[in-house]
């Protein structure tokens, strides 16, 4: 999806900070983002994952955390 990439480099970190600036609801979003990142890293590092099919027993968040 190209259209959402604005002409301006918004700064990947700056986009996350914006969520934190938005108050509690934003902090929840940022926490979720980080949690998904952590669990996705964790998943990639399990030896089982290196050889076998994706593990479906990880936390629910991890199920959709394979985006980056």
């Amino acid at each position, binding site marked *: 999806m190209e259209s*959402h990439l604005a002409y301006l*480099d918004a700064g990947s970190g*700056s*986009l*996350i900070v*914006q*969520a934190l600036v938005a108050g509690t609801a*934003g902090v929840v979003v940022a926490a979720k983002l980080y949690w998904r990142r952590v669990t996705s890293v964790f998943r990639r590092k399990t030896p089982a994952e290196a050889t076998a099919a994706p593990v479906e027993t990880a936390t629910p968040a991890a199920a*959709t955390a394979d985006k*980056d």
Partner: protein
Amino acid sequence: MTPEHTRPVAEPGSFRDPQTRVFHADGEVLRGLGAQAAQDWKALRDSEFFARAQADGTVTATEEIDRELPGEPGTWSATLRHEPLPFVTYHYEWSHTMRQDAARLHLDLLQQALRAGFTMKDGSAYNLQWRGSRPEFIDVGSFEPAKPGEPWAGYRQFCQTLLYPLMLQAHLDLDPRALLRSQIDGVEPAQMRRLLGGTKRLAAGVLKHVHLHDSIQSRNADRSTGAVREQLRDAGFNSELVLAAAKAMAKLVTKLDWAPPATHWGDYRETCSYSDDDRAAKQRFVDAALDATDKTDLVLDLGANDGVFSRQAAARAKTGYVVAVEADPAVVDTLYRQLRAEGERRILPIVMDLADPSPGGGWASHERASFAQRAAKADVTLALALVHHLAIGRNVPLPAIVDWLAGMGHTVVVEFVHAEDPMAQRLLANKPDGLFPDYHVETFVRQLGERFDIAKRETLPGGTRTLIAGVRRA
């Protein structure tokens, strides 16, 4: 193609968004819109939000016209025409309260846009300009329909060009103009972090917008914004959050006040050495010079102090526009607040050291025009009780001052303060005796006469100040 128009020239400062470009033609300001931007414009044009922003003047008056613009065939799908600005300024020429009001307007428009289903593509101080004491958002191409889950792309730019400069002044009493003038993209989070360590971390907004911003930025440096956008969306980010962030920032901006200190020039009007007769004669002379000038669309009042003569010029030149240029930021801030309270739309105060005026900046040094370039179109220049500051205070040779004046207004009104005047004496006291043997009114008038036809000359009753009106030779 309408052959009666001259070929539009691209504005050097508008190339960053390839979807839109500003052109100048015969004093008109035109904007080309690419296919996507033209679609966005149609949505914007039909919105109630835009109608409101047009009615209250917060977004530059804009209409769609039928005109071809230069570029490869098919580059521009639509052409807009904007109401021209009498004088363009950059944020390194604004006082603190001006910056605060400009930032507030930006966030206000962002909030209104979000409520109407739009967002803004950027967050740059360069998109804000002034009509007198009122800020105005000039980049109509910045609005686009919001997409679900999309953060504000302009947050970082807003921090770097508006929020951080406000923090520097409010939290450190550090004038941000020098940094802004030398870095077109504004102050970096990492720079701010170094400046705002220790207990300053606890000052309003610093922890989040500076420290957290910098560390999150460096930890995400190798991730693309596309990837992060997607992650945010998946984590439930939505435009309500952008709205909440904009609100929080607006609150912060309002907190970032700065009380101008009492400066040397702050009480000039009370401490200056004019008698009532001197003052009255000076005012009459300036009025007469303005009355004798047929074109007063743009008047520069150089070394304007509290703007007494800017006001006089605005009153005299009924339709004209006056730019009050003054080096002391505290004096400009006070003047701005007064003008704002009066709702003055025809006097624009700016901060600038005329011995070191704004240079050109950005790409090829042309993206931002130098003060000299912008001042060249002035009709009248007032330089009242200023020349001694440049000649004695800053050692600028008189012929160089004359050349400089000849690069500006067609008509000049100069008040030359004689070396014997107490004010000149004060400046001379800081320099070795005899350093300025040529500093003399006769010398100055002769040199001025080489570039200008001297229309009138009058020494004030006090005997130590001479007013000279000149018309530049073609």
